[in-house]
């Protein structure tokens, strides 16, 4: 069975819902199974259902690569359930850490910081720019990942070291660094209050020491209450 456009679109649409039924027990298990089944023929449905009814978790955007590769394995046949499970275990972990690093830690915060600075200065333009640029990268990986995964089959995991990920992450890091500078630049009007310096140092210490985020929020709450009172 080929990966034609109709099948591709059907799988793509289902990957948009991969996180819908996220639970602690199976994580994206149901979402992954639903995506795989949306691209599987009736004959292979029972086998897929039997073998993939369990835990699955990876980065939601890069799940497309794993889904494409898994579909190819089922289409080709000849692989045992154990072999497919072993491949999925390696692939989901690899794509999870790459995706977390690339999207959650680099690209999204970099673009958000940039768009926030732009929004403070230009209004709605910053927000629109973020949505367009971010979704170009996001949807590109989500859509093309299915095809690339399907073509490369088990070799998909070697893509993790390819330019499409490495270059984008480097670029995002540089963009993020420039956005930090930009934020310092536009912070100039509030610098006279001098409050920004101790607050930045204080919160940098909290973040660097990896204090639990809830504690940071509670301290922020205390600071805002204090600022409100004085």
């Amino acid at each position, binding site marked *: 069975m080929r990966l034609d456009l109709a099948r591709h679109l059907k799988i793509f649409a289902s990957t948009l*819902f991969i996180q*819908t*039924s*996220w639970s602690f*027990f199976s994580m994206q298990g*149901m979402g992954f199974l639903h995506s795989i*089944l949306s691209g599987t023929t009736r004959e292979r449905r029972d086998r897929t*259902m039997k073998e993939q*009814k369990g835990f699955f*978790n990876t980065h939601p955007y890069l799940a497309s690569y794993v889904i494409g590769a898994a579909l190819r394995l089922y289409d080709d046949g000849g692989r045992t359930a154990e072999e497919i499970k072993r491949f999925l275990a390696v692939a989901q972990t690899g794509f999870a850490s790459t995706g*977390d690093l690339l999207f*959650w830690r680099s690209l999204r*915060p970099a673009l958000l*910081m940039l768009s*926030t*600075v732009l*929004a*403070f200065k230009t209004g*709605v333009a*910053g*927000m629109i720019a*973020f*949505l367009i640029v*971010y*979704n170009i990268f*996001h949807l590109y990986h989500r859509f093309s990942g299915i095809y690339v995964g399907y073509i490369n089959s088990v070799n998909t995991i070697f893509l993790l070291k390819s330019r499409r990920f490495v270059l984008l992450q480097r670029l995002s*890091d*540089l963009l*993020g*660094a*420039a956005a*930090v*500078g*930009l*934020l*310092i*630049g*536009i*912070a100039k*009007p*509030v610098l006279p*209050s001098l*409050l*920004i310096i101790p607050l*930045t140092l*204080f*919160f*940098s210490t909290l*973040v*660097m020491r990896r204090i639990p*985020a*809830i504690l940071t*929020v509670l301290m*922020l*709450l205390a*600071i*805002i*209450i204090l*600022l*409100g009172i004085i």
Partner: protein
Amino acid sequence: MMLFWPCLIGSLLILDKYAFGEFGLSQPIITGTIIGAINGDIHTGILIGGVFQLIFMGGLPIGRDIPPDGPGASIVAAGSYFLLSRINAPGQSLFAAAVFGLLASIIGGQIEINARRINEKLYHRFLRDEKCLTRCHFLGLLTAFGRGISVFFPFFLAASLIRIPVSAPVLDQQRLITVGISVGLANGIYLFFRRSSLLYIVLGGICGLILLAT
């Protein structure tokens, strides 16, 4: 009816974060702007959304870790501000909205754990009856929507009822921006500061100053 729309819009926007797509529509800067536009004050919407964006920039949803609910916080803060400011002074409304938003981020994180437990029950239901995969999977949308309502409704109800006394604390926009930029810088330094990226930080700073001058 006054409470219905903010709850509905907020709960629909939050689906982007927890159930459908993750297009970035639930990011604080976007939700703040949308809520501001709906209430006819886009400037304050951007301000609240932008500040909450900078505050929750570092919350990374990696693996099983559930960070505080930044998108929910922004929706609560922006929505509450517009409800509060109908009958209260702007400074006091902004103070109460910021406090509501930060509290919502903590409560939202806890409610998210419960929502995921409900999804766990759906998964076990599916294990008992394979035919209901699609139904159980998409019921997760309802869980996420209900999660949104249960976070937003109490705050919006309180915001629509509270009359803040004149002697209550006041927060002006400048101070809120100062706090936002401080936490944003801390998050940015943590995420992007490397020796190799120092040049880009300086270049960004120069661009910021030029942007400020124009």
